């Protein structure tokens, strides 16, 4: 197997919003490479729809402190409040900066950036829904991704497209480089570097029905987890209330921000019962649970009573065309109904990982629950857990997270690189990985141990046992299933033996990380005997601040995880009951 060596000061893994924003910050100050398993513009940031919140106050009075209050309350008080303050305060400049770089925001009549309402965002700490989400129609993520990539093109940033990251090399606690596999050739590349940022996105493919791209498999968190770095708050996984029935394709909360209403089979606006003040614009965890409850109580629609309706019919053709063009096109394409005239069948869909690689507010990776910094290693975006989202992320705060903490990751890389000298990575640094890949290619293929069969069983079982509602029983059952799947994975085989674009080989590598993510998620969920935010234990239905006002840190141990905990950093907002 051919091995090619490169030398850079810094390497960013992943070219979605967080990776590109970090690159823009770091590139002028060092020899930098961005490696991505896709082309940058294919990254899933581009699928984000509704908006990016910032208290610009373009429509009505607003204040970043209110944004912070909403974020903390939305997080069910698990977010670290100093980090949330940074997120909401820096949001304003982050939006303006994107506008200056050319982002085509939708506009108000006075020419300022348009803002819309979104779930959980309120004026004056809960008084009424706030116009805070800055948007570009319903393709805000697409515009952010395009704008950041355009900026990188103008700066001449170096990209290695379609390179699958395989490993990070750390010696004596110091980062030496990363190893990657080139899809087009099957060659192994050693990137000698002393600063690495992981911005690899989420891992929604652990579930069967998901809004996530096929490529979202937790590669960055998986690589670090296998190196003994813990994963933080993995039990908190967000299910978005409005995925297209069966397909899981996202229909933005902007649909409800613009006035859309959820209805059960009888046409009842059921959110009035679950969140009397802000109704359909309650945070996602609450709305998803409400839908799941309606369905389990027999109020679901359809022959299997397993979905509810998102009703946009009263919004009028003009609003839909102007403000929700893309998502209504998805409905026409995949469901073949006209959303101007008919309500849309929806069900909750696996959407966003609140948990991930633990970092401090400078995007520096932490190697334990005590806050020990791992030198030269950074993480940002969905792959990371700062934590600004706590137990439940508010809509629009992820696009904010990627630019605010992506920038901070870039700054931290610059600080580190200017204070350290280049290192030397051994030419044999990739030998173990070359061998692993060769073994995978040499092994005879059998259906029982095929990537797709193991992954299918993983996704179906996670869907059944670890989704919106969980109990000790379902989680223990899933722990056993994961052990069996891990055993099967040890013997995984692939049919494709070729060097050029062997995407089956890449899927086998990704499956390893999917298993890691599932193991950490289930172990963390089993240990948290309370319900908070997106983590809902039917056997422990209440929040337990006495015992669980803390972040979990899952350390990989055999096929499960060892749990340790760190206290939440509180601030000016006292935990209270979360009602809307």
């Amino acid at each position, binding site marked *: 197997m051919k091995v090619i060596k490169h030398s850079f000061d810094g390497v960013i893994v992943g070219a979605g919003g967080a990776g590109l924003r970090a690159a823009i910050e770091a590139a002028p100050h060092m020899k930098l490479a961005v490696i991505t398993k*896709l*082309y940058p*513009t*294919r*990254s*899933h940031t*581009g*699928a984000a729809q509704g908006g990016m919140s910032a208290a610009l106050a373009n429509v009505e009075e607003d204040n970043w402190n209110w944004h912070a209050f909403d974020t903390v309350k939305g997080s069910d008080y698990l977010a670290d409040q100093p980090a949330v303050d940074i997120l909401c305060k820096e949001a304003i400049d982050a*939006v*303006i900066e994107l*506008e*200056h*770089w*050319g982002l*085509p*925001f*939708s*506009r*108000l*009549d*006075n*020419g*300022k*950036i348009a803002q819309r309402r979104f779930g959980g965002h309120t004026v004056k700490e809960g008084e009424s829904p706030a116009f805070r989400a800055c948007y*570009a129609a319903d*393709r805000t993520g*697409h*515009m952010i991704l*395009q704008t950041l990539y*355009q900026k990188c*093109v*103008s700066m001449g940033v170096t990209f290695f497209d379609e390179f699958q990251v395989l490993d990070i090399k750390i010696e004596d606690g110091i980062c030496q480089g990363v190893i990657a596999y080139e899809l*087009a050739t099957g060659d192994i590349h050693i990137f000698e570097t002393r600063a690495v940022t992981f911005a690899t996105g989420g891992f929604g493919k652990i579930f069967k029905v998901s809004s996530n*791209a*096929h*490529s979202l498999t937790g590669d960055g968190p998986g690589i670090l987890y296998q190196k003994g770095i813990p994963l933080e708050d993995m039990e908190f996984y967000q299910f978005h209330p409005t995925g297209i029935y069966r*397909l899981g*394709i996202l229909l933005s909360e902007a649909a409800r921000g613009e006035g859309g209403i959820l209805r059960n089979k009888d046409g009842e606006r059921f959110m009035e019962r679950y969140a009397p003040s802000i109704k359909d614009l309650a945070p996602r965890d609450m709305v998803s649970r409400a839908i799941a409850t309606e369905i389990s109580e027999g109020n679901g629609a359809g022959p299997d009573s397993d979905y509810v309706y998102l009703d946009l019919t009263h919004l009028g053709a003009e609003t839909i065309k102007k403000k929700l063009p*893309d998502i209504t*096109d*998805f409905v026409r*394409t*995949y469901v*073949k109904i006209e959303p101007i005239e008919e309500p849309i069948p929806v069900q909750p869909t696996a959407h966003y990982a609140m948990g991930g690689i633990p970092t401090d507010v400078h995007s520096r990776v932490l190697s334990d629950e005590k806050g020990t910094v791992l030198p030269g290693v950074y993480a940002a975006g969905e792959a990371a857990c700062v934590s600004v989202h706590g137990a439940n992320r508010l809509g629009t705060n992820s696009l904010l997270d990627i630019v605010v903490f992506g920038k901070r990751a870039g700054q931290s890389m610059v600080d580190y690189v200017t204070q350290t000298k280049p290192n030397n990575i051994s030419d044999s640094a990739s030998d173990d990985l070359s061998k692993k890949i060769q073994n995978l290619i040499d092994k005879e*293929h059998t*259906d029982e141990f*095929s*990537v*797709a*069969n193991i992954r299918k069983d993983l996704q179906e079982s996670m869907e059944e046992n670890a989704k919106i509602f969980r109990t000790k029983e379902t989680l223990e059952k899933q722990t056993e299933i994961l052990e069996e799947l891990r055993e099967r994975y040890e013997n995984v085989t*692939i*049919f*494709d*033996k*070729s*060097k*050029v*674009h062997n*995407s*089956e080989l890449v899927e086998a590598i990704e499956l390893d990380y999917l298993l890691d993510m599932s193991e950490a998620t289930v172990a963390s969920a089993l240990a948290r005997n309370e319900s908070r935010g997106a983590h809902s234990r039917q056997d422990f239905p209440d929040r337990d601040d006495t015992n669980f006002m803390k972040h979990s840190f899952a350390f990989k141990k055999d096929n499960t995880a060892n749990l340790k905990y760190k206290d939440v950093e509180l601030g000016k907002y006292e935990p209270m009951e979360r009602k809307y």
Partner: protein
Amino acid sequence: MDINLKILRYDPESDRKGHWENYIVDAEPEERILDLLHKIKWFEDGSLSFRRSCAHGVCGSDAMVINGENMLACQVLVKEVGNPIKIEPIRGLPVVKDLIVDMEPFFDSYKKVMPYLINEKEPGDRERLQSPEDRDKFEDTTKCILCAACTTSCPVFWTAETYVGPAAIVNAHRFVFDSRDEGTKQRLEILKDVNGAFRCRTAFNCTSACPRGIQVTKAIEDIKRETLLNS
């Protein structure tokens, strides 16, 4: 129901040229063509190679020729294309393996038109103002996902690979008609070249092919007109 798929395969490590292979796949009418390709890859022949990521028409990975027309495999359903279904790689770019083509020439053309905001003026602490009417002038071309469906449906591009192609012109349009941008002169200089917008013969293939519904031919015409007005 059984669907008959005919796929143009090519393995650079063993084939001298492409060959057709037949597959019978059990599928529902509502399934995406991408779902059928996955069924083959995951449960029948793992060597079948194609790009994909988001699976709902926004990432632009899986443009291919389906029954003779450029489409995204994740955006078209079985019931829309009938049976049998013929699938080939997009045309005009070198085939690397099966349905995967070399995208580098495509992205090189994109980069040629300076696809980024050019404005040297200090913007100040707040957003630049732009009226909704000015914002509307380039709304259509902001939708581009760089999937290459337009460029690889263009008969001029098939015969002249030096032509920048519809996608690059669409991305130039997105900035030329943005009231905040000041790079129009430089871009039009590039686009009035022999390999620029005037190479277009208004076949409208690009407009039919665009999975985002962009009026691609109109955007090219806008650029041609702007070039004449500026010269």
